[in-house]
């Protein structure tokens, strides 16, 4: 498992955890039904808030994955170019 895969797996775990936390809201007591209905209405009003949260975390996750991918590609390039330089310097000598 590469570093990029590990980072992506951990980030996915974070998303899973957040979704679980959101779903694991405790049911409200019957005496607070009116308040619960109001809260549900208010939550519906602020749907864009949850969408924004999701979009922001997706943006950050995309940044992590993109950086990890670029980093892995650069590490490969670095290794290949280093050995090539060594080889060229040997033939020059």
């Amino acid at each position, binding site marked *: 498992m590469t570093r990029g895969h*590990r*980072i992506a797996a*951990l*980030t996915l*775990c*974070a998303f899973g*955890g*957040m979704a679980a*936390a*959101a779903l*694991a*809201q405790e049911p409200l007591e019957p005496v607070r039904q009116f308040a619960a209905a109001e*809260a549900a209405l*208010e*939550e519906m*009003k*602020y749907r*864009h*808030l949850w969408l*924004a*949260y999701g979009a*922001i975390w997706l*943006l*950050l996750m995309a*940044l*992590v994955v993109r*950086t*990890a991918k*670029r*980093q892995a590609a*650069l*590490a490969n*390039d*670095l290794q290949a*170019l*280093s050995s*090539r*330089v060594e080889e*060229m*310097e040997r033939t*020059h000598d």
Partner: protein
Amino acid sequence: MNLRLALIALCTIGVIAGHWLAFDFAPIEARMGVIQKIFYFHVPSAMACYAGFIACCVGSLAYLWSRKGRWDALALAGAELGLIFGLIVLVTGPLWARPAWGVWWKWEPRLTSMALLVLMFAAYWVLHTFGGAGEGVRRFAAALAVFATPNIYFVHVAVEKWKGMHPELEDKAGSGLSPDMRIAFFVSMAALMLLFALLFEQRYRMHLHARLVGALRRRIHRLGGDV
């Protein structure tokens, strides 16, 4: 287990805990309602934005002083993350402002100075990324970052100095967050700052490696090889 993985795990736990505390543990604010929850993400993002821009300034000063590429890489990593978190601040702010003020945007001191700060560092990033590989461009970009950074102070004191509409975390009378809100806020802040630190280290290392790859390519070219 290495330190980096341990920090990633800690950050993940912190982010999950921060969200649970913000949405389930902390009470709903009496006047603003659910929309106030954005504050647990908006303020830490602003702090991460400041940290990124300050890192950019430190890196730029050190680069102007020493001309060493690693400081330039550090400055660029700071500017990138400052911009990303700054954009998050500029997106989450209007999401709160629409229900709270009735408008998406208001040209009040905190918002205007924050937008200017982000635009200045956007100029740094554009110049650095698309201005070519010459050292003159890097020096010019570094000077721009040094001059843009003091604007952080103006953003920070804007509400107090120019009496804007933007809410403050604590007022002079000592009212502000309830203890439960305070816990949620500080956990969110710690998690996001740790995320910032991890991303910063990752971007810095990436820019360093990119410079090394460039240097090796130039060396191969000098030795007569194709790259």
